[in-house]
């Protein structure tokens, strides 16, 4: 028996299948670069597209579908959105908004002051269900004298309110009588933003169409498709193959993405920082602020930026370095071995036989953890542990599963955290650093950090509307933080997006957590 026909037949079938598939397989997305759809791949997929259920950073689809009363410009300043203008009373407790005229929702229904009232009332009432409800805790009442006027009355001044109202407005007619967490609305939302969601396939993609009724006129890009590709490598491959026109790329992939023909890289700073949170409640050794200062001097932030971030970042020495509220003056911490020695000796420590700082036979030993699933945080953890160990701190690196961490926040000794916002600083500094927000009180001050000067500055900054006074108060806050550091600061991340050469419009801005906010002015984007 030599060659049974079946063998050949089977092989031929298999190869024919392969060949036919190959023939119609790849091929660059030429059509889309000729003025049609912009297809963009991103790793993170939101659980819901309801803006009230997302924290202050909004994913691209939600950002494109929704619009708030206010919005942010290229400098992250609050500017009018759906509200044309507003008035704030002298005591900072009464806000009067005037809506633009002729606003409509994506389904064609008119957008009126009733929707504004509904949004604020619903989010406030949702309490723990909606992370942003904390922004509306001080709202006493919302009144709607006419269809385009909204009066918001506060029980006490709350300066971040205008910033908070950049949250997308929710349509009363779509959500009335339903819970704000309604899953159907989260999957097929109705907004008033520049793009209308036409298809949402969880785990695959979201398809958006220019909304003709948008208040600034229809966007120039007819269609945007956001494709969810969690794997970093797969995003790069799809970009190379032309399966997508643009993509969010990690630092490791950024150089390769830049080499792809017809594609340019847009790299922007973000306000998203990484730092080592220290648990004061768990480890008494952290009580001595000289040890914490010393650790901050032991970190070589430039080496971090160069190695872990491949240049896509900048050193962090405080929570507001990328904010308009950044305190004037030089960075409080540099990489300085002599300073470490000086501080540790002042604290009564001496180097033991293994080159570790010890006092009374005890080293500064602690476990440094982070979410094991987050590879970039694990990288930071390992480099930080190596650097601290080299300077005599007895650090044990041990990433832990997310589930374990969630159950055991109080048990963590030190943890790689990420915080930061490019918008109003209150949302991202009050929670982690105010003593009233300690973990035991259900707040997000996980390390139970407490400093009266910090508390005072944060409280005052919340109640002051005057930008100059606020800036001074946040300056005091940063000074107090540098003197008594709650974290070991590491670095801010930059974010890179590959876009086709033919796409005009993306504009540099300091972006938020996860690099979200890249589409902030997408209504002005166009094909050249």
């Amino acid at each position, binding site marked *: 028996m030599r060659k049974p026909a079946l063998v050949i037949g089977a092989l031929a079938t298999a190869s024919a299948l392969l060949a036919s598939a190959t023939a119609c397989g790849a091929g660059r997305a030429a059509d889309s670069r000729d003025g049609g759809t912009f297809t963009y791949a991103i790793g993170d997929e939101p659980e819901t597209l309801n803006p009230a259920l997302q924290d202050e950073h909004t994913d691209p689809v939600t950002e494109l579908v929704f619009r708030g009363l206010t919005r942010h410009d290229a400098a992250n300043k609050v500017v009018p959105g759906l509200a044309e203008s507003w008035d704030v009373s002298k005591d900072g407790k009464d806000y009067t908004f005037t809506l633009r005229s002729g606003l409509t929702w994506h389904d064609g229904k008119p957008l009126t002051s009733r929707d504004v009232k509904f949004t604020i009332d619903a989010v406030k009432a949702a309490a723990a269900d909606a992370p942003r409800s904390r922004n509306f805790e001080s709202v006493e009442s919302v009144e709607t004298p006419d269809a385009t006027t909204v009066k918001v009355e506060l029980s006490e001044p709350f300066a971040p309110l205008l910033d908070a109202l950049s949250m997308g407005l929710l349509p009363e007619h779509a959500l009335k009588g339903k819970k704000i967490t309604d899953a159907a609305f989260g999957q097929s939302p109705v907004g008033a933003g520049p793009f209308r969601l036409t298809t949402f396939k969880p785990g695959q993609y979201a398809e958006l169409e220019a909304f003709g009724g948008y208040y600034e006129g229809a966007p120039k890009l007819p269609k945007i498709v956001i494709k969810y590709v969690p*794997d970093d490598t797969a995003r790069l491959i799809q970009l190379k193959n032309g399966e997508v026109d643009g993509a969010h790329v990690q630092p490791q992939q950024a150089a390769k993405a830049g080499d792809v023909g017809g594609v340019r890289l847009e790299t922007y700073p973000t306000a998203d920082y990484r730092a080592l949170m220290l648990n004061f409640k768990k480890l008494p050794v952290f009580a001595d602020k000289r040890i914490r200062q010393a650790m901050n001097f032991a970190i070589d932030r430039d080496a971090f930026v160069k*190695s*872990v971030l491949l240049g896509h970042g900048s050193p962090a020495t405080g929570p507001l370095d990328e904010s308009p509220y950044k305190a004037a003056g030089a960075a409080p911490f540099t990489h300085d071995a002599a300073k470490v020695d000086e501080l540790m000796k002042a604290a009564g420590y001496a180097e033991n036989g293994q080159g570790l700082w010890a006092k009374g036979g005890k080293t500064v030993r602690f476990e440094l953890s982070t979410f094991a699933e987050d590879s970039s945080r694990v990288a930071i953890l*390992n480099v930080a542990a190596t650097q601290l160990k080299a300077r005599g701190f007895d650090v044990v690196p041990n990433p832990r599963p997310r589930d374990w961490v969630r159950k055991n926040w109080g048990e963590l000794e030190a943890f790689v955290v990420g915080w930061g916002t490019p918008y109003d600083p209150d949302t991202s500094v009050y929670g982690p650093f105010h003593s009233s927000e300690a973990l035991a009180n259900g707040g997000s001050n996980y390390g139970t950090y407490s400093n009266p000067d910090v508390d005072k500055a944060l409280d005052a900054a919340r109640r002051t509307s005057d930008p100059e006074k606020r800036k001074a108060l946040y300056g005091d806050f940063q000074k107090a933080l540098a003197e008594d550091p709650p974290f070991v600061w590491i670095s801010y991340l930059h974010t890179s997006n590959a876009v086709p050469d033919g796409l005009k419009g993306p504009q540099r801005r300091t972006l938020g957590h996860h690099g979200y906010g890249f589409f902030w002015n997408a209504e002005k984007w166009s094909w050249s």
Partner: protein
Amino acid sequence: MPITETRLARTGRTGSGGGVPFSGEGTPPPAPRGLLAVRLPARRPGVWAAALLLAAFALAALLAPVLTRYDPIATDTLATSLPPGSPGHPLGTDQLGRDLLARILYGARTSLIVGIVAAAITVAAGVLLGGLAAAGPRWLDEAISRVADVLLSLPMLVVVLALAAVAGPSLGTVILAVAATAWMPVALVTRAELISLRERPYVRAAHALGLSRGRVLVRHLLPGALPPVASIAAFEVGHAILTESTLSFLGLGVPPNRPSWGNLLTEAQAHLLTGEWYTVAFPAACVVATILAVNVLASTISGETR
């Protein structure tokens, strides 16, 4: 995972009963895991090479601290992403400047420990349960066989996934997950061998001579049943290493900071296209080479016990 053959394969191989599956009475014993999937007519040089390779890996794992002066988790921001052949780093470094040779050596410790311990537990549990089924009361036999049947008709990865999701990543989880989902073939083989041996004249003679049940079991039955069990045990090591790497790859295996071949692969996967092919190639080669070598040896053992 290597595939366990049904008794079909066994009857097919031996040719007894005219190659007809389950047409006869009783339950023919299922064949050991992977018998057909990976069996290769063993040749002396191949067997020697496989044995040498495994011995080398084991020795390297054991002597890791002697063979490299690097700490496998210490980063070096001045020596990131070095290609293989760089001075001081024969296999290069990863993106955090960690020495790849050190990571592979220490990774061998984890991967081989998982493989050997998991296989040992699997075999011990299998022999114990199989022995109990063969020697114990009828209801116990029935219960053990039924549970094995049910477990065998489930795709193992699904069960392992559920286990790993529940227990969280740890060495113990991986070992337990492997053992919990792989003992059945061992148990069934042991049971079948014991039952068939029980009827042999020399065993009957031993009974007739008045030896106690336990003594017959230890002196006459177990030694006879050991060879087929030994060949499964060898395959189990390869199976365990494969499962470890798959679980780690899915983010549900060995804790991420502990070097293991599976973890190295998971971390390196993203760099496959960014030029650092070697961070993928070396650990992958280690996994594949180990499994192949184990399977060569297992084939030899099962070949000789036939």
